[in-house]
């Protein structure tokens, strides 16, 4: 892969809305990515392996639970800082961002919000420093878009719970130390349990054959009569709303992350179009290429504006789930379209792994599917504005 020449694009001077510390956090993440990840990411993708040695570095730039209070090892930052870190990670690779956002929003967030004080003390500092890696088990082989139909369940055995079932498509599963698992109790109500590696009957087979998100490890979680200590149940919230609130946090991060992927594709396409000559002039001089580039920066700028606003609303605790759905859906779709257009601008070079565009494009197929598919987010908006549930 060629040297990472990425530079940000800020057509509407959005940086003026950031604090100096926001910019320092973003630029730090960007510098770390360029130094430590860009040189190795193509190889990791090709090999289909998450580069685990990066965990410590992700922790050091605040990539694990930046908004978690400092007393639990987090950085106590605001939501815009979290968004900016996600943007910079996904600018490099969606799989890198996935590892970070799963740990932050789907593991640390529920333990912080719904866990006991003992659970927070026990898990959060290690997750923040990267000593522990976590995963989030909601999806099952037969229940993806409809997680409420899950069959993973636990029984109260008096001094412990007995957990049975299987989760599928779980990011970080193959090497996670802890899993936040959503399962039904005997009355059919959903609760979150913290399952730890080493518990008898708990295994995490790796899923292979992905054409997307190859630099992130995905696996199954299998529970065969796993004895889970009672103190590992998160008592703060139950019902489907509990996992969905975690998804809100993660989807918010994805909305920022997708802007990063789009920016990278645009940045490369713009530079390439200015340098590449055909018919004796740079291809950037042709109207057809300008249309593509101009539309890309327009879409990116729109996404930057409304995602920043979403960040403000989240800082104030006012962002609704439906607003987050809209941003996740819009931005990922925007990014995938920009990746496709950018790839064409590079002509044949667009399909070579010397440039990251095709990798972004393939990655974004997962991103547009997980954390609620493109269709599902549309239905969420539809339900929000009409009051009619079109899911079933």
């Amino acid at each position, binding site marked *: 892969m060629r040297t990472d020449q990425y530079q940000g694009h800020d057509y509407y001077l959005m940086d003026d809305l950031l604090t100096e510390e926001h910019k320092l956090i973003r630029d730090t993440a960007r510098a770390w990515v360029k*130094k430590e990840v860009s040189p190795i990411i193509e190889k990791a993708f090709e090999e289909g392996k998450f580069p685990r040695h990066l965990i410590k570095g992700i922790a050091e730039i605040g990539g694990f639970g930046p908004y978690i209070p400092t007393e639990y090892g987090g950085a106590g930052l605001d939501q815009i800082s979290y968004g900016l870190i996600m943007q910079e990670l996904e600018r490099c690779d969606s799989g890198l961002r996935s590892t970070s956002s799963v740990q932050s929003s789907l593991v640390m967030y529920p333990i912080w919000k719904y866990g006991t004080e003992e659970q927070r003390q026990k898990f959060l500092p290690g997750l923040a420093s990267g000593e522990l890696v976590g995963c989030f088990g909601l999806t099952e082989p037969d229940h993806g878009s409809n997680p409420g139909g899950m069959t993973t369940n636990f029984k109260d055995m008096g001094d412990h719970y007995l957990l049975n079932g299987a989760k599928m498509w779980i990011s970080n599963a193959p090497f996670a130390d802890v899993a936040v698992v959503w399962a039904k109790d005997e009355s059919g109500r959903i609760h979150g349990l913290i399952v730890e590696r080493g518990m008898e009957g708990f295994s995490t087979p790796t899923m292979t054959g992905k054409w997307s998100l190859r630099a992130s490890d995905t696996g199954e979680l299998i529970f065969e009569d796993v004895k889970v200590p009672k103190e590992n149940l998160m008592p703060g919230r139950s019902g489907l709303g509990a996992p969905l609130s975690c998804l809100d946090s993660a989807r918010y991060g994805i909305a920022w992350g997708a802007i990063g992927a789009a920016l990278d594709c645009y940045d490369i396409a713009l530079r390439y179009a200015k340098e590449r000559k055909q018919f004796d002039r740079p291809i950037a001089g042709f109207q057809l290429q300008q249309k593509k580039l101009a539309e890309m920066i327009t879409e990116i700028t729109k996404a930057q504006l409304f995602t920043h606003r979403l960040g403000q609303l989240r800082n104030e605790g006012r962002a609704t789930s439906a607003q987050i759905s809209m941003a996740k859906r819009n931005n990922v779709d925007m990014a995938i379209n920009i990746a496709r257009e950018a790839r064409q601008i590079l002509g044949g070079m667009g399909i070579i792994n010397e440039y990251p565009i095709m990798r972004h494009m393939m990655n974004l197929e997962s991103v547009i599917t997980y954390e609620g598919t493109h269709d599902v987010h549309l239905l969420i908006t539809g339900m929000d504005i009409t009051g009619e549930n079109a899911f079933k």
Partner: protein
Amino acid sequence: MNILVCISKAPDTTSKIAFTDGNTKFDENGVQFIVNPYDEWYALVRGIELKEANGGSVTTVTVGGADADPIIRKALAIGADKAVRIDTAEGDPGSVAAQIAAYAKDQDFDMILTGKETINYNGGVVGGMIAEHLDLPYISLATKLDMNGGVAEISREVQGGVEVVEVDGPFVLSAAKGMAEQRIPNMRGIMAARTKPLEVVPAADVASNTAINTYALPEEKGDCTYVDADNPAELVRLLNEEAKVL
């Protein structure tokens, strides 16, 4: 060990360079400013490494207005202990050196480190001028700096080789590539930088001796012609007949 590192503000290398006011002012609109890389990557990082190995403290000093605070915070996030900003608009190198010397003369610094130049005007003279003001030894373009007891062992690149210098007692040094490796701040550093002291001190009564009359952009680079590596005859022909340089 008491180390002073001079930190200046420079436009990011990807900035678009433009001028205003009839080509007499650099147009800062839309320009991102960064810590001058020679100050940050080499002088500051080596200062921090020496402090980590030998104890003491690293202070940064910057001549500039409040607009320099973001780059000063970054230096603190990377690991400086405290920062001083001499509160006046940055003038020519002579005035900057005089300001820094006026501040440093009553302090007890074991060494004063600068980058070999700032990537705005690339003058590369501030370090030497500080040394002159303070009557200290000056070692320019240093690529290595080690402390051996109280003695500094310094390597500098000279034409065709390396010169190794020993300095006993306080000195001023300008750091070049090779002195240290870039350090990316971490979140802990960024958080700590919030509360590290940034002292704003009044400027000494110093004026610039030079003024900029006008700026001009360099001529655009001409087209690049690629010549096959197996065909040096063609290269010679082009240099001779087209470029007319042979």
